């Protein structure tokens, strides 16, 4: 019993911060999304904001764009990260430290600006391509910012998230996976057999875990699409922000409804992750 009390006390500060700032904020957002804002005289509880948001074409376009950007960013990052981790698994810690740990320390905001400077039609890449004669003049460089396919956003996310996933995968590759691979070798498994029957099943829970985290993050992140996204449709977090900044306070429930929906979707992804992680843990080869 004494142990439990001690654990509870030690956890209290962290739980307190999470509880007040996160659950409290989310709770307040939820309450406002139901149209309950006594401060401005809105005392009626209703689902109007949700009804309105979900039937709004702008919202659905925005949702589709957000799913697309998060999905493609996550998929690309995962594939590239696994390949990078496999390539670097036998190298020393220093190489992977430089290649992987450096980008992680750089804020998303800075990364977005950096990517913009390189891939803009007036940027480094365009001028280099023009100087090399690949394109006639810098303006002929393909539009990768504020563009239909959100290439700039996806590039930023891939650049930032590949190292994150790769470090997680590397840890499991260098841990038990490499020992199991040695066992498999002495039992006659060739390189491809070892990857397919041993290494991949062993690392897949951590790959799935890391990529679901990336999906949830890119789904709810605001700064990169705000800087590099086109003006319509915008990704959901940007849309929620715009609604929030609306001078008319009556738009507030709509903004909060979008936030709650983002939270629900990322929450569903997290639940899926827990479910999958459990299944993968129990899976028979």
């Amino acid at each position, binding site marked *: 019993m004494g142990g439990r009390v001690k654990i509870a006390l030690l956890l209290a500060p962290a739980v307190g911060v999470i509880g007040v700032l996160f659950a409290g904020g989310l709770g307040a957002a939820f309450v406002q999304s139901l149209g309950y804002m006594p401060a401005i005289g809105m005392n009626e509880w209703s689902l109007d904001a949700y009804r309105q948001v979900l039937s709004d074409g702008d919202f659905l376009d925005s949702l589709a764009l957000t799913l697309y950007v998060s999905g493609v960013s996550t998929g690309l990052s995962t594939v590239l990260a696994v390949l990078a981790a496999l390539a670097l698994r036998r190298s020393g810690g220093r190489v992977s430290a430089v290649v992987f740990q450096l980008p992680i320390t750089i804020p998303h905001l800075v990364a977005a600006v950096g990517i913009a400077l390189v891939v803009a039609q007036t940027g480094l890449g365009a001028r280099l391509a023009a100087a090399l004669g690949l394109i006639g003049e810098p303006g002929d460089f393909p539009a990768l910012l504020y563009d239909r396919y959100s290439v700039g956003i996806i590039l930023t996310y891939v650049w930032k998230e590949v190292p994150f996933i790769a470090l997680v995968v590397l840890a499991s590759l260098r841990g038990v996976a490499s020992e199991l691979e040695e066992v498999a070798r002495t*039992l*006659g498994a060739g390189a491809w*057999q070892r990857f397919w029957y041993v290494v991949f099943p062993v690392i897949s829970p951590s790959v799935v875990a890391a990529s679901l985290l990336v999906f949830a993050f890119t789904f709810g992140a605001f700064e990169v699409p705000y800087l590099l996204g086109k003006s319509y449709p915008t990704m959901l977090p940007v849309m929620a922000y715009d609604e929030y900044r609306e001078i008319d306070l009556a738009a507030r429930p709509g903004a909060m409804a979008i936030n709650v929906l983002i939270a629900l979707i990322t929450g569903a992804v997290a639940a899926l992750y827990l479910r999958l992680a459990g299944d993968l843990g129990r899976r028979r080869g």
Partner: protein
Amino acid sequence: MGARLELENVSHRYGGDAPALEDLSLAVEPGELVALLGPSGCGKTTALKIIAGLLRPSSGDVRVGGRSVVGTAPERREAAMVFQKPLLFPHMSVARNVGFGLRMRKAPRKESESKVHEALRRVRMEGFADRAPEELSGGQQQRVALARALVTDPRLLLLDEPFSALDASLREEMRGLVLRLQREGGHTTVFVTHDQEEAVVLADRIALVFDGRLQMYEEPEAFYDRPATREVARFFGATNFIEGRAGNGSVRTPLGNLRLASAAPPGDVTLTIRPEAVRLEAGENSFDALITSAAYLGTQVHYGLETSGKSLRVALPPHVRLAVGNEVTARLPAESLWALRA
């Protein structure tokens, strides 16, 4: 049936450090069980990994069945290895684990199934085929690992301290199991251990390695009766060392002229005798001594003796009780004395 294994002048160094293994040469006959014995860090696991192919020796040759395998990948050596940890594949059932090597060789399904069943029966795990590894105890997991290695009928069976993580009674049971399986299957086996008792119980021959060098490669009895060096003798629990000078068929020592049944090399020698071989009686090679200490160990009593400035240790059955300070007559039987080059 296992193959003959030969190591010839095998050396290995990791990076720029001192060699982990230096000039190791030994041959293991088909079906023989050899223990690679030594303190931790002596290079024995390095040697095993070189035999398995997981490490490439810096120099020297490894031959299996008369053919060099230095350039052969581990997966084509048919040298199955059991590690210190069971390392079962966590995503496969027990039966899938055991059948892994057969699947990699694309063995027919029916044949594989019966082999897996037979292997599980031999390690007494037949009821566990569909269990997940995490549901098994450490000892059960290691038995499955053993079955997984044996099911492919490897030319070499390599065991790297496979029982060191198990508790004492389980370890004893596993030793019996390995011995039985190895005899039945006739696998040429190399067993790495730091435990001299384990080596003595299991091995046909013991290769004792210190600091990457082979010290002695003989049957277990020889390490007690005819140790090659003082270090070897000490590793096997010898504590009595008497300096002397050999000549005229006996050795002149502070305890008097001692006769040996075996030949002593001429010149300065060190005599050794095991504590349990010392007799408290008069006769050849006897002298008077003082009892300086007594320690009761349950199955034995250890006495410290002192004479002419020399200390000796004697191990006697527990019913012999002598008091510290008593004078006794001690005898070193000629057939139990062994002369080492000083």
